């Protein structure tokens, strides 16, 4: 159930009670939702009751159009998963700016956790 597109990749690994999703590559398509949304619609229903770890630190670039489908995936995952832990690299400017909104939102979403290192 991995995501494999021209530049963007996500590897899904399942352990006992936990799921790890690691993003890699870069998302610079004009309409990245065409790739991310169908994939997330398959993955998210399998996350029910699990602890989900989503790691964006390996991403080289994420354009502005890519954030919304990823945000919707995280939002849907949070609805059914036990906990969703998002990891990004705060020392990279575009990553810091991209996930700053999530930092604000996480304050009102108890099972969404972020770490920026």
């Amino acid at each position, binding site marked *: 159930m991995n995501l494999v597109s021209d530049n963007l990749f996500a590897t899904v690994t399942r352990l006992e009670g936990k799921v790890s999703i690691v993003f890699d590559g870069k998302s610079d398509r*004009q*309409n990245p*939702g065409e790739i991310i949304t169908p994939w997330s619609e398959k993955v998210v229903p399998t996350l029910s009751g699990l602890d989900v770890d989503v790691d964006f630190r390996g991403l080289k670039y994420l354009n*502005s*159009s890519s*954030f*919304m*489908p990823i*945000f*919707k995936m995280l939002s849907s995952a949070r609805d059914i998963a036990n906990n969703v832990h998002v990891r990004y690299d705060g020392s990279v*400017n*575009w990553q*810091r*700016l991209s996930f*700053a*909104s999530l930092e*604000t*939102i996480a304050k009102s979403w108890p099972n969404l956790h972020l770490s920026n290192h």
Partner: protein
Amino acid sequence: MNKSQKSGLAVVLTALLFGLLYYQTRPPDEEGHLGTINSLRNARASLREIELEISNLQLTISENYQPLQASISSFDSSLEELPSLVFSSLRREVSSITEALENGSNQLAQYHEYIEDFQTANSNLIAAIIDGDTHAKMRYFGELYELNYNTHSYELSIAIDNATLRYNQAFQSDMEKIERYRLILYAWMVGLAIALTTTIQRLRHLSLHQESLVKQRTMDLDDALSELFGEMELAKKIQTALLPRSPSIRGCEVAATMKPADLVGGDYYDIISTAQGDWIIIGDVSGHGVSAGLVMMMAQTAVATSIRQGANVTPPELLAIVNSTMIENIRRLGEQKYMTMTVVFRDLSGSFHFAGLHQDILIYRDHSQEVENIATTGIWLGLVEEIDPKLPAGHFELAKGDALLLYTDGITESLAEDGQMLDSDGLASLLKSSNALKSVNEALSYITNSVENREIDDDLTVILIRG
């Protein structure tokens, strides 16, 4: 007559009787007999020669028959592969067959000529026999000759007839095949010519039809494009008309520019002066193009309306109002859009208050000649239903000689030839360098011209404010 005379007479009569009998039953004349035998031998020799010639003739026919059959087989193969064969190859096959048939015909003519020679020789032989001996010899040897002749000539005749028949049958069969194949070939050629002519005509007709369709479609497309570009131009005009024409902020110099990546962009900036102070707004709708431009126009309307109606609204409150106004409309558009936005309010005392998550704010400090980087906080618009209007606001001052730079990611994400982004650090350097320029407009041009050779895939907006 006494007894001894009678006995003598009986002996004499007996001798005469035996002599008479001997005379009557003596062998034929040796000389005539040998001549007849020689004639017969000659006739047999002639017949053997004839047999030999006939055999040779059969061999010749047989030898010619094989290549003829091979040629016909080859012709058959060629005809089966006719669609893929060139006509020259077929012509060579036909020529080969024709040549083989001509050879066979020549052999047959020679054979008939030989038969005539045989018959002439035969007649001469009979005449020689007739002229050479007695009637009895002639009849005797004539019978023998006739017996031999009939036997041989009959066999010969049968053999010749059979050979002739086989040859004629083969020849006829081959000719029929050739004729049949020729007819098939002609029919195929005629069919091919008709098919080709029909196909060419259809293709020509289709081509004309297609050309006509293409012309019509091109005209339709041109019309649609003209209409679309007309509408796009109109949208661009509307968007441009929404931008502040001569932006000004009390006690500051201001210069601003926006360069959309497409005809219609998703970047947004505005400067609105009210009795309470001056608002500087900058934002960026995700993506670019018409849909982003529409969201931008919604934002502009929502911001302008909210500021003018709510005299004492704070930056976080303004963002909360704009978010609640826009989010339903964005959903109705069916677009996965959101908007970064920072609103800065300069009160009448000269203090700046800001809120909203967008790019970092860069401030060139004249006293230190360094660039200060202030991170924006909050949340993007369009992500959640409600934004807390009590979110903390930031604050800064702008002294004389300081320069405030607000921008969208079109400039910080512009790429150098080596693929490196300019980033906020690179932009800070440009801001620092631009401060040497006297006018704010020159400084802005310096910054935007510095990234002209970089790869820019997004709308680009820069607002430069000098204290």
